[in-house]
């Protein structure tokens, strides 16, 4: 093989694989170079991983221009469009934050392995393929790639009971949900005789025209696929694994599962709903509305009494997922036409959620000390005295989660409520608005611990390393910028769903 042919391949379809290829390449590189490093140098693995994320981001940047033409590659099995570019950016940001937060966490925990970073990059690869895949096989393999990496990462602390329990739980439910999803995919294949999404789209549309009203096969596919994806995004009633997994996993991994898995799941959901299942949009809109309200109810009320921060944030993630589902419900007008602002609201919510939710987990990560994870609410006592900067950062992230201006969370909730009102679902808007009140209560229980209560016997100030500073700065910058000057972020959200997906 000569160099020339490699360039030929790189100029062809393979160019569209560069973002994922970089992640895989550097993931393998961390594994291969690990043996060269001494124990003190293990944190350099993070540097290699970050380099991979950066190069992957750079290749995404190069793909912006072709993405405007919605190119497909490898006989239509992946598609490079604005949707992929935008979700890719956000997922890579989440990956970068996770890596930056992990360095000190692993150092303190005393288990700094190359495999941790490699697995994070492999999970990111799966996520990117979930955003770009346009073939059922690619999507399924991508989903499994992400999920399996997460199972291992969740159980990364082998000697810890909680970590083990979390890994087993999430693996069992994950395997089950993957099976259900695969069943749904097989029905789609049965309908179309092809695994390609565009072919399936045509077939479903044809079927919808042939059998107006109830078409059992389409609904079966819709139901099973929705159930499978709901388990990945921890939407009620498929959420049971989430609180245990978040609590048991290393905190940076909890953050990564919470934002990465959820966002990638939503990418899959949006891709399928906006293309394949668009003919039955009124039905899935109702499904989203029910699941959204259920997620809000369960997430909110379960979070009210939690004392463990990670569990609380897990339930809060479920509730936040409820808002996103309601946003998706509002993307369809009552007459079945597309409501653009609803779609924009959904995507805006997903994108900004990554930053402020990861931010809340990041502050919890700071609390960790040798031998203890410190993830109870009481561990935050008097943080406003001990470390005002960390306390204010946590305040901003919690305000955003609670939807209080001037933060990204406020604009996101405003958009969702507004599009619910405009798309003719005022009662859903009322429900969504009323759930803000209890959610503010449980978020501000954390704030109260930081400001009202006295610091306990350990006044040790949480240390913030340079890597963590970078991560926190990025998260808080987006949280505030998208709250105060949301215009550019709204454009970004709109751009991401341009083209075949709706707009």
């Amino acid at each position: 093989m000569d160099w020339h042919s490699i360039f030929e391949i790189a100029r062809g379809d393979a160019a569209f694989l560069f973002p994922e290829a970089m992640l895989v390449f550097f993931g393998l590189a961390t594994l291969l170079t690990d043996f060269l490093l001494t124990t003190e140098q293990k944190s350099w693995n993070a540097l290699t991983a970050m380099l991979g994320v950066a190069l992957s981001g750079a290749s995404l940047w190069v793909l912006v221009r072709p993405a405007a033409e919605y190119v497909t590659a490898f006989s239509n099995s992946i598609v490079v469009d604005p949707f992929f570019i935008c979700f890719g950016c956000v997922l890579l940001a989440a990956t970068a934050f996770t890596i930056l937060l992990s360095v000190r966490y692993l150092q303190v925990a005393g288990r700094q392995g190359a495999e941790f970073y490699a697995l994070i990059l492999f999970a990111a690869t799966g996520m990117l393929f979930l955003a770009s895949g346009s073939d059922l096989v690619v999507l399924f393999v991508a989903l499994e790639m992400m999920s399996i990496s997460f199972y291992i990462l969740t159980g990364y602390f082998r000697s810890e009971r909680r970590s083990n329990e979390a890994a087993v739980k999430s693996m069992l439910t994950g395997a089950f949900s993957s099976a259900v999803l695969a069943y749904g995919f097989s029905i789609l294949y049965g309908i179309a005789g092809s695994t390609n999404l565009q072919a399936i789209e045509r077939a479903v549309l044809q079927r919808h025209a042939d059998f107006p009203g109830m078409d059992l096969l389409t609904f079966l596919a819709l139901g099973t696929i929705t159930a499978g994806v709901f388990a990945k995004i921890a939407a009620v009633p498929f959420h049971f694994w989430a609180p245990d997994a978040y609590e048991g996993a290393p905190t940076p991994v909890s953050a990564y599962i919470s934002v990465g898995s959820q966002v990638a799941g939503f990418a899959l959901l949006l891709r399928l709903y906006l293309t394949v299942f668009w003919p039955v949009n009124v039905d899935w809109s109702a499904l989203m509305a029910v699941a959204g309200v259920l997620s809000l109810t369960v997430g909110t009320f379960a979070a009210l009494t939690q004392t463990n921060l990670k569990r609380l944030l897990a339930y809060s993630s479920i509730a936040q997922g409820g808002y996103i589902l309601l946003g998706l419900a509002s993307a369809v007008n009552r007459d079945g036409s597309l409501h653009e602002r609803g779609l924009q609201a959904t995507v805006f919510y997903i994108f900004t959620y990554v930053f402020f939710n990861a931010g809340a987990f990041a502050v919890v990560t700071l609390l960790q000390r040798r031998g203890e994870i410190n993830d109870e609410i009481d561990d935050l006592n008097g943080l406003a005295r001990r470390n005002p900067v960390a306390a204010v950062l946590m305040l901003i992230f919690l305000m955003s989660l609670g939807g209080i201006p001037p933060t990204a969370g406020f604009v996101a909730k405003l958009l969702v409520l507004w599009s619910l009102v405009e798309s003719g679902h005022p009662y859903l808007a009322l429900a969504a608005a009323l759930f803000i009140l209890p959610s503010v209560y449980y978020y501000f229980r954390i704030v109260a611990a930081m400001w009202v209560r006295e610091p306990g016997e350990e006044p040790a100030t949480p240390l913030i390393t340079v890597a963590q500073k970078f991560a926190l700065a990025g998260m808080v910058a987006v949280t505030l910028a998208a709250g105060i000057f949301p215009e550019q972020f709204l454009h970004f959200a709109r751009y991401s769903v341009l083209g075949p997906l709706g707009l």
Partner: protein
Amino acid sequence: MFFFSDHHILCTVLLTPLFGALAVWCVPRGLAELQRKVANGFALLGLGVALPLIWKFHADAPEPFQFVTDGNWIPSLGVHFRLGLDGISLTMVLLTALLGAVAILSGWSAVREREKEFYVWMFLLQAGLLGVFMSLDFVLFFVCWEALLVPLYLLIAGWGGAKRGEAAMKFLLYGIAGSVVTLLAILALAHARGTFDLREILLHPFMADAGKLSFWLFWGFFLAFAVRVPMFPFHTWFADALAEAPTPAAVMLAGALLSTGAYGFLRISVPMLPVAALRYQGLMIALSLIAIVYAGFICVAQKDLKRLVAYASISQMGFCTLGIFTLTPLGLYGSVLQQVSHGVVTAALLIATGILSERRGAETVSDFGGWAKLRPRFAAIFTVAALAAAGLPLLSGFIAEFTVLRGAYDLRWSVAAWAVLGIILVAGALLLMIQRTLFGAAADSTAENSVEEIAASSGLADLNLRELAPLGALLLVSLWVGIYPGPLLRTLKRPVERTFENAFLVCFPKARAVEPTRGASDGQKMDRTQPNSVTGAATPSANAPAAEKAK
């Protein structure tokens, strides 16, 4: 001057507290004295930059809002950064600026830990309040309305009394509960009208043809405003929050935050939803009267100084809502006067009680006594403030309550009678408080110690100049409003007229003929027919031809 031009002055006023927060934040940790000085400097600057508004504002200008600043904030949502003032909001902005300066000055000795953070939150709170009064865009209004809850929450939670956690959480949850429903109301309103512009909706209020929507909107907004005022069933957060808050936060809470509720009624509920306001007028008046009388009774029974002031405050704010929902020009004038009066007088009372508890370390009435002999300056100030709150003529409380009562009397005499009962109760409670704290046997003197010895003992001195200045300024404002409210009324004339006429004379053309009490507004109506007579009814020379024409 760039910063004080008509288009920039509101931004200057709004941004000064934010820059104050930034400046205090930049002072290194540990330099508490410097932080305090910078904070006070910016607080005074905040008042200073607001003062030019007084002489730049034209009370008789034909356009409804002046100093309009309009920037495209979120173009894809049609949300603008739009600021502007009319007479009512000008009054509120000046009140907030004054209270902001006074509050921060009053925290000089009261706040002795984590000063930097404290001042940052104070400035953010002030900016939020100013934003509420200035904004002419619903989204901006809401952002300020809700965002200011957090700084105040933190001020109470971080620097408050023993039960600060519960009090702060209660305050926050009440505030958020009101806000979320209001957010929906704003979205529904924008959905119906396709704009977030307040001016646009003020020009075309929701009339009878809007159907049920206007009633839903009314209740949506009502919840938020009623929680803030606080009106009768929603008042329970206030006494707790005020009792636990540190003095500077308490001053902003009672003086300015409560006014945002009344301002909301004046700016949104009544002029934009006149049909609904008229329909629920009876209920609103009943709730106001309950607040006035019920809070009055609680006031009499209170032992705790700050709680006493809190319930007196609820009773006085009852007059604000009563005035608004009499839906007469006099009532509206009275309501704004009462907001000003309540703001400055309650602030003075709170600072005074703050000084008392700071020196004595106690907050129960019976812990004090005989202070008049030892601390004459303090006694004089405290007495004047209490009398102003009790409604003594020549002080602001009297003129405000009198105007509201006059409006209420026109509506129905029994309404005024019930309101008077409330005044008597509050006055009685305040006078009793004065008697027990300032006169009688000195609680801190014993047979062995002479008066002079106690006075000289550390921590129990009379007021120093730094404490005297803010109290004096507040009482001077009260005195000025009480003796010569003319300029204030002239400022309010246009917006009050507009609120009244826009909504009611347009909505019910017959109302003018039926109501005998609207004579005064008829005269003013004539002035509006000739917008070229710039001075309007304010000066006799311009008024004379108008009166002739009226004949």
